[in-house]
């Protein structure tokens, strides 16, 4: 049977991808960001899974206002890095895992979560920046990736509670897959940031720190947090953090082992948070 071995949480700031692609990782500004991932790249080499289930949000790339799926699961064999307006990132094509993706879609929809199945979807920085942070600049990504896009662009986005429960349904779906696959689930986005209006640049270090503590120790309680608290305390784009609850919900009910924790301000407009939790 397949099983979820660990979860990874990280911000997915586009400027991080640009810094990597343009060879700026050694600059002091960026060095402080990338140093937080030195451990993580080694950890992933030592703990390469068979599949990564990667929860992220599309930033008006694959999904315009023509269609706004709340939850979209990528079931294709491959996904091309998108041209977001600056040209496509020079990163490997993302290979999917259609068999496991289809299995999860069927199981989770039968569990009352109305996923949208997507077979053609360019993937933007929300998906490729976490891969770059965790893998560096390889010629190919280390394993297949199932992209799972969550609408956090048009309000209302799904609640933290719904995201957490969805994670639990994904856990159940993976556990019922009839192949001995090791699966990691990654939750991306956040932490505190606001990209719009006179309040742009908002960062709330204390709130972020408490969020990380609660995500580790009491995610079911954290999942009760209302949208307005995210917006007020962590900025309008801080709402992306609901996606971390999907990954956390997919973990076992036993307390996880904290393999790594990192926090840094700023990367461009954003507070960078990063956790690796292992199932025990």
């Amino acid at each position, binding site marked *: 049977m397949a099983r979820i071995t660990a979860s990874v949480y990280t911000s997915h700031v586009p400027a991080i991808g640009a810094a990597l692609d343009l060879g700026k990782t050694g600059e002091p500004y960026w060095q402080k960001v990338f140093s937080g991932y030195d451990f993580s790249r080694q950890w992933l080499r030592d703990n390469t899974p068979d599949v990564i289930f990667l929860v992220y949000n599309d930033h*008006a790339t694959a999904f315009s*206002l023509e269609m706004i799926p709340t939850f979209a699961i990528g079931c294709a064999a491959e996904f091309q890095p998108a041209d977001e307006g600056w040209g496509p990132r020079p990163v490997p094509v993302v290979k999917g895992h259609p068999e496991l993706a289809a299995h999860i879609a069927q199981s989770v929809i039968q569990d009352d979560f109305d996923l949208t199945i997507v077979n053609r979807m360019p993937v933007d920085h929300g998906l490729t920046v976490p891969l770059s942070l965790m893998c560096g600049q390889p010629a190919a990504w280390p394993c297949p990736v199932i992209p799972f896009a969550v609408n956090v662009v048009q309000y209302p986005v799904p609640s933290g509670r719904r995201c957490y429960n969805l994670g639990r349904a994904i856990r159940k779906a993976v556990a019922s897959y009839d192949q001995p696959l090791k699966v990691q689930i990654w939750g991306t986005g956040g932490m505190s940031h606001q990209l719009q*209006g006179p309040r742009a*640049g*908002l960062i709330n270090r204390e709130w972020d720190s408490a969020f990380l503590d609660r995500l580790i120790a009491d995610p079911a309680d954290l999942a009760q947090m209302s949208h307005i608290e995210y917006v*007020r305390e962590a900025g*309008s784009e801080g709402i992306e953090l609901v996606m971390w609850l999907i990954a956390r919900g997919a973990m076992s009910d036993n307390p996880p082992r904290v393999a790594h924790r990192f926090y840094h301000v700023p990367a*461009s407009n954003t*507070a960078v948070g990063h956790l690796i939790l292992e199932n025990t």
Partner: protein
Amino acid sequence: MALDKPYQDVPGTTIFDAEQSRLGYHLNQFCMSLMKAENRARFKANERAYLDEWLMTEEQKQAVLARDLNWCIRLGGNIYFLAKIGATDGKSFQQMAGSMTGMTEEEYRDMMIAGGRSVEGNRVVGEDGNAQAHRQPQGKAGRKEAH
């Protein structure tokens, strides 16, 4: 019964909800078109003519021509869509975000390096934080424009 919109009292913030999305549909779809290199070239060659191909309001077109992102957002624009205009202009996300505060690029960058904007005084309309309406513009860029 009216919908509950508790986010309307957050200062300096417009939540892109279904109503804003409706208002901004054509503006945002125009932005989306700039993801294609040939459309970026056509827009740059003649902005007005390119905008006239879209069912946008005249005010939305003026806001785009002025590159006033706060104005675009008031008219239904969403920052992830508007970012395509900035990308076409060769601007980073930090330059775009900073442009909405009235700070210069340097002032905004320095604020971020110093830990970002504090939430204190900026949670609810009526407090005295630097994102509140009575404290705009926040920096030299905005003051220059005001003269």
